[in-house]
């Protein structure tokens, strides 16, 4: 049966933030619960019926009381709101120097891809003290990436990218759960997050024998899928050159402008007709069904490697 903790381990910078908020919420809840329970006990006994025919005197209503017990709780809830929102806001703003990682969820496993090319299934190795930002995609249904010790959770929704970030503060081994019901073996879609000393992490990275970095795999895909036939580096093809594309503002045929970020590139591969670059015809075929979510992520990494500009700030980790 094991140990019997009341609070989960604190292993990220968010964990104390969330727990402090919890202490506050608990204090308010305990105060009001005790207040109500004691009042009921006291009043019910103090004014218990002593004879069958008794008829209590009716006091006049109390507007002042009504105002007091509406306004004071409202003030307290606004503290809850502000506090909760500020924790959430931090959770949704990954720092610029966060280490990027990719996650692909599918029934019923977590696939993790490191930039250096390491791949893991249901395990995630990360260095202590370094902010990590995950970009997550789903191959099928909605999943949810949840690490209780970090106090973070984010749904992984098919058809779009979601992101999440955290900064581990304590070496160890922590549960990774899928929190959104995803089918028969939902409760088997679990794994471990290993937070390692930076040196151990370096050893771990060099220990595996990856087939090349993520960008290199992407480059190979780029030729295998014949993307390179049209998208020529010098822009002489029928299609725009992808050199330096990532992070650039693109002028679209319909007049709109858009920043070339991960969701834009993913969409351009899977639904090319959705947004057409000004000056080009909608000739690109869709690659839906030809390339997996992992493949798309590798292609994105490859395209990133062609351009100097990483996106800074990079949208909300907890939603877009």
């Amino acid at each position, binding site marked *: 049966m094991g140990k019997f903790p009341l609070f989960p381990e604190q292993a990220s910078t968010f964990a104390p933030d969330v727990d402090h908020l919890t202490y506050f919420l608990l204090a308010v809840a305990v105060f009001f619960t005790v207040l109500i329970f004691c009042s*009921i006990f006291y009043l019910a006994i103090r004014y218990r019926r002593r004879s069958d025919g008794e008829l209590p005197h009716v006091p006049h209503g109390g507007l002042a009381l009504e105002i007091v017990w509406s306004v004071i709780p409202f003030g307290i809830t606004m503290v809850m709101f502000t506090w909760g929102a500020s924790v959430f806001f931090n959770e949704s703003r990954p720092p610029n120097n966060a280490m990027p990682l990719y996650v692909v969820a599918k029934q019923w496993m977590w696939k993790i891809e490191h930039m250096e090319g390491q791949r893991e299934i249901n395990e995630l190795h990360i260095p202590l003290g370094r902010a990590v930002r995950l970009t997550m995609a789903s191959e099928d249904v909605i999943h949810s990436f949840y690490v209780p010790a970090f106090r973070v959770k984010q749904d992984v*929704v098919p058809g779009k990218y979601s992101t999440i970030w955290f900064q581990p503060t304590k070496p160890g081994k922590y549960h990774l759960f899928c929190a959104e019901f995803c089918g028969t073996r939902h409760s088997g879609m679990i794994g471990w997050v290993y937070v390692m000393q930076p040196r151990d992490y370096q050893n771990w990275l060099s220990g595996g024998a990856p087939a090349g970095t993520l960008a290199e795999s992407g480059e190979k895909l780029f030729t295998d899928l014949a993307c390179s036939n049209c998208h020529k580096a010098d822009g002489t093809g029928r299609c725009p050159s992808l050199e330096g594309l990532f992070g650039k503002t693109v002028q679209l045929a319909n007049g709109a402008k858009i920043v070339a970020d991960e969701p834009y590139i993913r969409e351009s591969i899977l639904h090319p007709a959705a947004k057409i670059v000004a000056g080009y015809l909608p000739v690109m075929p869709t690659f839906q069904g030809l390339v997996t979510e992992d493949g798309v992520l590798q292609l994105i990494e490859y395209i990133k490697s062609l351009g100097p500009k990483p996106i800074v700030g990079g949208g909300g980790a907890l939603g877009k």
Partner: protein
Amino acid sequence: MITAAVPERENYLNNAYGIKSWLLTRDHKRIGLLYLFTVTLFFFLGGAFATMIRIELLTPQGNFVSSETYNKLFTMHGVAMIFFFLIPAIPATLGNFFLPMMIGARDLAFPRINLLSWYLLVIGGLFSLFAMLAGGVDTGWTFYTPYSTTYSNSWVIATALGIFISGFSSILTGLNFIVTVHRMRAPGMTWMRMPLFVWSHYATALIQVLGTPVVAVTIILLFCERVFHIGIFDPTLGGDPVLFQHMFWFYSHPAVYIMILPAMGIVSELVSVFSRKPVFGYQFVAYASMAIAVLGFLVWGHHLFVSTQSVYAALVFSFLSYFVAIPSAIKVFNWTATLYKGSISFATPMLYAFGFIGLFTIGGLTGLFVAALGFDVHVTDTYFVVAHFHYIMVGGTIMAYLGGLHYWWPKITGRMYPEGWAKLSALIIFLGFNLTFFPQFILGYLGMPRRYHVYPDEFQVLHVLSTAGASVLAVGYLMPMIYFIWSLRYGKVASANPWGATGLEWQTPSPPPVHNFDVTPIVTHDAYDYSTVIGQEVEVG
């Protein structure tokens, strides 16, 4: 017992006999009993599923049923309890029976539609029951896409169709209540003289009529995608899975108020009668119901905080969620204040009302927890949320429902229930409930996800506690079942007004005559003016 010499007074139960006199009745009281029978069946069905869930969770391994079966169990538990028990439970049984009587009406405005709405519930229930027997459904009661439209190969459509049909039952009941309250009040029954039970049912009816069509539309869209592969929610067909969540919760959040508002109405009646005082701040409690009904439509996004909804939308939904909490708090404070200088009786219904206030307070306060964004990210989709809503829906709604059943049992049946057993069962339910669900708050905060068939070892102790509590709770629920039936024959004969209550339903014999009142009552006093029923006034305290 009735002696042979006195011919039995005619009432709604003995004016006609035979199955047809029930199945074709247009009497709101008989229809209320048909509902009572139906929702009780679904309650015990849902309870059977819950029992199997709790047995499975005794051990971390999945060794009682398979994962497939487990997923179907929690889905069918949710479907049976939410759509076929909690939503109709209070309005369609006690509301149906007493709303017309409390405003001095002979029936609801549309008696035939009232009967029709019972048939719709039964037909919807049969569809869903068929789905359960044919193999079950495994999507969770929330039917999230694209799992429900593309991936699940269980009986999604039959179940959803059952919910769709029963939704019309709910809409028609709401419509009937609204028209009845507007058009059929007895002379002198002004809005501000209406019992709070009527106010809360009026607020509920508004939600039923305005909210339920949205879930009907959502189910039609789900149907189109699952059967005709029209892309609405599944991204591989060009849809958006999160759109489904928005539509689903646009109904289902207000629906949680369909489940709690009528319960609050019962508690207002009970607290008043058993303190022999008007509810403190009557107007505030009445308007709080209306405020909840309106604000309840503005907060659905608090179920989507980690769904990829935008950060700013999340902020707005969190902010608005706190507004709904205030009217609920106002009610709790007013009920408590009603006790002050009252004449408090500890009859069973009052014990249930106390139980309701305590458990609803905990459920409502934890609602404030999960409405705080940074907190919810950690606990959403864990047992913390499971505990939160069970505190409100089981600790709150079912407590109030049982309190109401005990309170009106003498009026409905003309018999008293056995007081000693009833007090004992109220106590058992309160203790069993807390033992079942309190550990789930801790489980959730520790990170135990909901809807898990197999779980890590360290959560076992708390799961065992919860299952132990559930067995106590089951005993508590079976007891009223038994003594209520027993009382039909052996219970003490009830007088017209055994509690000294002011409601018009108590100013007519028990059980009531077919048309409720022999003469149409004329209302000259506010609700809860006990000087009209209790002889002398004495100063208490």
